């Protein structure tokens, strides 16, 4: 069965011999990326920590298979993160809506207004209004700080589409941000 083994090896082991994995370095590199992806995607730091831990836990179980292909391991991490975010978002959609409703309808105290004026809070609220796809792209771009090419690979969109959607979304966010600035100035 030497022929079959050769075929399998040639298809399954295409990567070249390279350095052994430095898991500490890989962890240090990807942890902020994954954590910030979830910060932008979900808004809540506690949820971001939870899902970051879940992502790394799942990915680590398969780490041996990526010992010589760390680039692919990054892709595997991003895929797990993406799916966890989708699951989480589905489960929490109703709750988030209620939270937003309470915020919109509730009487604002001076303390509330102060919190709302913080940039992080403002950005979180603006991101919550985005459709899921747009929010995910923003999370990859500004949370994980990936290039449009990398985002295209993860999302399945073309690089051109990623660029177009991001451009449109950033413009929309900028306009909303300026509107809020004007409201606060009054």
């Amino acid at each position, binding site marked *: 069965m030497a022929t079959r083994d050769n075929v*399998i090896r040639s298809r399954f082991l295409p990567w070249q011999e390279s350095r052994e994995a430095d898991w500490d370095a890989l962890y240090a590199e990807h942890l902020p990326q994954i*954590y910030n992806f979830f*910060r932008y995607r979900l808004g809540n730091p506690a949820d971001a920590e939870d899902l970051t831990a*879940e992502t790394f836990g799942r990915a680590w179980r*398969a780490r041996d*298979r990526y010992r010589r292909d760390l680039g*692919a391991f990054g892709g595997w991490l991003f*895929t797990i993160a993406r799916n966890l975010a989708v699951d989480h978002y589905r489960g929490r959609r109703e709750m988030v809506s209620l939270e937003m409703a309470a915020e919109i309808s509730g009487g604002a105290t001076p303390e509330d207004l102060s919190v709302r004026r913080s940039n992080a809070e403002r*950005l979180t609220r603006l991101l919550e209004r985005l459709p899921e796809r747009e929010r995910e792209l*923003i999370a990859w771009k500004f949370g994980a700080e990936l290039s449009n090419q990398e985002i295209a690979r993860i999302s399945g969109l073309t690089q051109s589409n990623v660029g177009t959607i991001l451009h449109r979304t950033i413009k929309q966010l900028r306009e909303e941000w300026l509107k809020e600035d004007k409201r606060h100035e009054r």
Partner: protein
Amino acid sequence: MNDDFLGGLRGQPTPEFKAQLRERLRRQEEGADTSMNYEDLPVRTSRRPWPFLAAGVLAAAVVALVVSPALRASASAFLEMFRVRRFAAIPVDPARLERLESGTIDLKGLLADNTDTIQEPGPPQFFSSVASAGFAAGFPIRVPAVPPSGMAVDTVTVRGGGEARFTARTTKLREVLDALGLIDVTIPPGLDGAQVGVRTSPSVMVRYQSEKRRIGLYQSRSPEVSLPPGVDLAQVGEIGLRIAGLERADAERFARSIDWHSTMLVPMPTNAGSFREVDVRGNKGLLLTTRGEPDPSGNPGREGSMLMWAEGDMVYALRGNVDSDNLLEMAITLQ
């Protein structure tokens, strides 16, 4: 105004969190904590065991792959009547499935008695390599870049394409509906005698095996179906959903929200496991996890996972007695 405001959420995880997680991962690296459950971290995520699939479902029956050999023949014939673009699942009552399997309902005869086979697919042919199987199948076979840990290719088989024509006989359908007590279901008047042509492409199955684990990777071009004009797929699909056990209101609602030309339904018995939608390189996939619990008759269930998705005009499925993450990992590394 620049875009600096968009960086306002970026930050570093707390040092405590970083240290705690790294320590847990390190224990896992050393093999001291291989069974570690990450849910022991303070996870506050909301997980719904039965996520509602708003995109709709299709009245076919891959349920056979999960629970019932008896349903497999009729189910597979039915599901091949569509050009598959996506998969979706719906939880169904296991009692209904048990009844359909019991033999008292002639579901199989609904199709078998009215089928004109033009080309038989023939038995699966074994090949010594993936490449030669791909040559025989007529399309390049994709295999995972990262092989399942400790597993090797066991067999590679190709099944030929097939072609058949089905003639709808409403008397037979009425018998099935009556036997199930579905007397309120209306059969479209133009359905009797309608012919549906089905052409399936060759399919390839690559099986991986280790001492205890097995995984099958299925791939094929999507089946092609020709339907006579005037057939209301949503109405026919609604009948299928009622047969599968859905209440009238649910069946109506689902039937009207589904793209019946492109979506394959996977009925999932509520006692068999769980399902969720996943992303496979930008394509929506359906991931089923079965618990392996015995059915009401005491027959052992099948513990494992199954992942189905479509890419372009190709349909893929992975199934095995492994963790669902293993299947997802294989899927995203297909090349």
